[in-house]
């Protein structure tokens, strides 16, 4: 049983502890040996940075001006990322849990135990009794290897990854509409758009470096239309803010399309020559005149009309979105409803005309292309397609009949653990106890496992439940590729050796496969060898990497896929002449508004939504240990409108209970006019009793299987305490003078 019996002891030993100085301290005399050009380990911008290395230690960071995406710009996470590398919390040797305590073990002991347990479970319950759960912070080489490891090393069908919680709806929508899943344009197209529609994307907090492109567009005279339930920094800086109720994007998008149709702002020639199924989408949109869309969404009809006119009358324009529209039980439909707008106006396929999702995870794009999704094989091939199965079976040197069938998505995977069908788990660089919805159920899933292995470089909230923890490596200790949000394949370079006994996680996976008797399929000696096999495996697939090489990446500052031949320089902009469906045409979809799976009622009258803040990354396992980042926002808060606060008699900074049908937590109130009165918001980066995901709803989108993080019913309850919230104090000080005093 994988229970956490000694939580206090585990936290005391493995953190999170705050670390805020480079090795040797700030005052140390530095003699930097080398600067290693690489990329940030966090979001999908994948900014270029130079790591300063002194005697096999990363001691600082220097902006990298030569990388065209960020040109030296870095967000606070990027500036402080190097502090991960020699963090006192780093896991430096394998751990085996005995009587609730993690004990130091040798690699041989840990691997022998893993293999014995996995073999035992599979002999008793079948091959599919083991699941693999992976992440999109891994390099593409590792994500490819994880997929192969699950299907060939463990011979299980059950593998999925945390990208399911991130961009699965974008992928679902892109594949349905365009036939391929990638942002249509490079970021460099943004400044050439007259109008930007930014839907459900708080770029200021989540993709700060993207703001550089947005402001270049503004400097060129461009306009932003921001669609978001909160008046975020992005919305504040925009020209027009459509402050909709969470979960009503389809109504807003259809309302905009309705105006475009009625005011003849569509591009009929484009629709006729390059798309299918327009009439059905048109008919659906006609059901949403601005007043109807307004009634559903809460956005004034005039603003919907204004948005449609701004976008429709402009010669160029781009639509960008992120998790705000994707994290819904109808996330794919949300995406498709915005794609309808781009297609109807013909604003796609040229400079300044385009469409794209903004990637949350560092390798969110590459991580979803090469076979760690439940139903997918490398190169974006389908496990249900016999030809695709045959091709990959040949690359892997197996008979097609040995290829497992598709598994299930992330949330369903954990449901199967809870139901007892899955008995063992190997997770790598994922923190499910923070990032999955309805964490109280996730806890039961992990506690029900017979054997649980985790590979990570910090002890996460999820790793605490493991029986064996293997120490992995940070991004600075290995090389490999990632694919950024714009589809640019870039290369992470190794700066230092892994500390202690930590091993490259791809070597750990290979070692397990060898000991499982499947070693002949895992003979890689370097990430480059894995990448070269990946290139062949992707050849001819939708995500064709065959022409991408490490040398070409270095030479070109990255290579945009598809890059099908060695002569090709890649494809920065998609759809210039054709879409990726067989007939070369894009597909419209008729989308009707359904709304969230759980709507407010008398008992739970508020709409709860979750999201991020700029100083944390995803589950916070990396960033909640960096002193500077934690000082900026020490704990989560519940954002509410003054009207809401007044209704519940809550003061700013006062702790308040937030309750849904699934769970509850206590958070300090942040009373602000920048949120709708019917909506409350909590950032989700924390775990245990501070987890926003105690409250969220695990309802799934039928296409993408993404959970509904962004809208569920909740209520507030006033509690009485004299304890002053930390956040309230910091925020009232607001200044770094206050924060710095704590040094």
């Amino acid at each position, binding site marked *: 049983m994988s229970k956490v019996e000694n939580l206090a002891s585990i936290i005391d030993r493995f953190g999170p502890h705050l670390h805020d100085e480079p090795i040797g301290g700030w005052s140390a005399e530095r003699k930097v040996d080398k600067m290693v050009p690489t990329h940030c380990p966090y979001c999908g911008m994948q900014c270029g940075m130079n790591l300063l290395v002194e005697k096999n230690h990363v001691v600082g960071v220097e902006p990298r001006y030569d990388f065209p995406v960020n040109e030296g710009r870095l*967000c*606070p996470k990027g*500036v402080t990322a190097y502090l991960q590398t020699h963090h006192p919390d780093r896991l430096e040797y394998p751990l085996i849990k005995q009587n609730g305590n993690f004990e130091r073990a040798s690699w041989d002991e840990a691997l022998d135990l893993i293999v014995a347990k996995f073999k035992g479970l599979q002999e008793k319950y079948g091959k599919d009794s083991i699941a693999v759960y992976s992440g999109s912070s891994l390099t593409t080489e590792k994500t490819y290897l994880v997929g192969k490891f699950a299907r060939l090393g463990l011979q299980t069908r059950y593998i999925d990854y945390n990208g399911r919680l991130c961009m699965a709806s974008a992928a679902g929508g892109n594949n349905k509409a365009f036939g391929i899943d990638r942002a249509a344009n490079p970021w460099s197209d943004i400044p050439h758009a007259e109008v930007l529609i930014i839907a459900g994307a708080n770029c200021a907090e989540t993709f700060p470096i993207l703001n550089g492109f*947005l*402001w270049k567009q*503004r400097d060129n005279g461009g306009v932003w239309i921001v669609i978001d339930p909160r*008046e975020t920094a992005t919305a504040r800086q925009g020209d027009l803010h459509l402050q909709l109720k969470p979960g009503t994007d389809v109504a807003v998008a259809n309302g905009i399309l309705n105006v475009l149709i009625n005011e003849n702002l569509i591009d009929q020639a484009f629709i006729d020559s390059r798309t299918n199924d327009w009439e059905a989408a048109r008919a659906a949109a006609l059901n949403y005149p601005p007043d109807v869309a307004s009634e559903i969404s809460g956005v004034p009809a005039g603003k919907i009309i204004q948005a449609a006119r701004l976008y429709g009358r402009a010669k160029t324009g781009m639509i960008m979105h992120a998790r705000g529209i994707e994290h819904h039980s109808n996330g794919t439909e949300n995406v498709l409803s915005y794609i309808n707008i781009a297609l109807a106006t013909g604003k796609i396929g040229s400079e300044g005309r385009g469409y794209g999702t903004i990637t949350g995870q560092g390798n969110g794009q590459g991580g979803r292309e090469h076979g760690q999704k439940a139903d997918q094989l490398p190169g974006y091939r389908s496990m249900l397609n016999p030809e695709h199965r045959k091709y990959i079976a040949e690359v892997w040197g197996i008979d097609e009949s040995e290829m497992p069938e598709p598994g299930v998505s992330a949330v369903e995977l954990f449901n199967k653990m809870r139901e007892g069908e899955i008995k063992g788990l190997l997770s790598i660089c994922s923190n499910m106890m923070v990032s999955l919805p309805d964490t109280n159920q996730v806890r039961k899933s992990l506690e029900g496992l017979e054997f649980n292995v985790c590979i990570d470089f910090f002890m996460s909230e999820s790793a605490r439940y493991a029986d064996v923890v293997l120490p992995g490596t940070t991004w600075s200790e290995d090389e490999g590729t990632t694919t950024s949000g714009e589809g640019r394949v870039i290369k992470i370079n190794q700066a230092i050796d892994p500390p202690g006994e930590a091993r490259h996680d791809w070597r750990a996976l290979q070692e397990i496969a060898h000991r499982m008797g499947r070693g002949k399929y895992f003979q890689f000696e370097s990430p480059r060898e894995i990448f070269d096999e990946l290139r062949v495996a992707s050849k001819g697939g939708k995500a064709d990497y065959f022409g991408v090489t490490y040398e070409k990446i270095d030479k070109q500052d990255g290579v945009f896929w598809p890059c099908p031949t060695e002569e090709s320089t890649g494809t920065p902009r998609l759809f210039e002449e054709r879409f990726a469906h067989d007939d070369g045409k894009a597909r419209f979809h008729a989308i009707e508004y359904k709304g969230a799976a759980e709507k407010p009622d008398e008992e739970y009258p508020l709409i709860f939504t979750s999201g991020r803040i700029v100083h944390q990354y995803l589950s916070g396992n990396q960033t909640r240990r960096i002193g500077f980042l934690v000082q900026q926002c020490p704990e989560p808060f519940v954002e509410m409108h003054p009207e809401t606060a007044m209704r519940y008699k809550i003061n700013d900074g006062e702790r308040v209970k937030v309750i849904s049908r699934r769970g509850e937590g206590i958070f300090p109130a942040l009373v602000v006019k920048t949120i709708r009165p019917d909506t409350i918001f909590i950032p989700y980066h924390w775990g245990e009793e501070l987890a926003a995901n105690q409250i969220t709803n695990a309802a799934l989108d039928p296409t993408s299987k993404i959970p509904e993080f962004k809208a569920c019913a909740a209520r507030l309850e006033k509690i009485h305490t004299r304890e002053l919230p930390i956040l309230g104090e910091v925020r009232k000080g607001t200044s*770094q*003078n206050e924060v710095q005093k704590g040094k």
Partner: protein
Amino acid sequence: MNETMFIDPQRCIGCRSCVAACRECSTHKGYSMIFVDYIDRSETTATMPTICMHCEEPTCALVCPADAIKQNEDGVVMSALKPRCLDCRNCVNACPFGVPKYNSAMHLQMKCDMCYDRTSEGLKPMCASVCPTGAISFGTYEQIVPLRRTKPVNAHVFGNQSVKTKVYMMLPTDADEVSVDGCGVFEGQIALDGANVSEESWIDTQVEESNKSNEF
């Protein structure tokens, strides 16, 4: 050095990259010389970065009894010289922009020196390098003006004190100066009818701060 800093508050997203990066500058020893504040979080997400404005006639240097604050030939006003700094905090109290901070541990006034160790070698200051939005930029006047739709302004009026700075604020194109006259006690003005406002009331708020917010 013709380059200087340009501050554009409307672009600030409050991310504090600048604060994080400032600590990385090799002469700052982990202290940040830049500050980012919410204007009023209950009303807006707007934030404002504050750096040393590098006044042409720096008040901090004028009031320093020990001549510890030097302005170099490029117009950059440096932190206090450690051997001379008397811990008196005159500079902290006198600066109209509220910039200098007193470092209790080091017995020293420290403030933004425009990353002189970097700028003197042709590098950008750390804050301006990393700023995601260009809220803090570094360059020449001639480089910046064609890029922006805002206007660089370096004339500031604090009541009856006019200050010209090396650093520019990016303002609407009809602005010629930044006027900060919220006290209502200058030029015979009275803040509120009938209110008992003494001419020295601003001293209470600006000088006698008891919360030591001007310290590291």
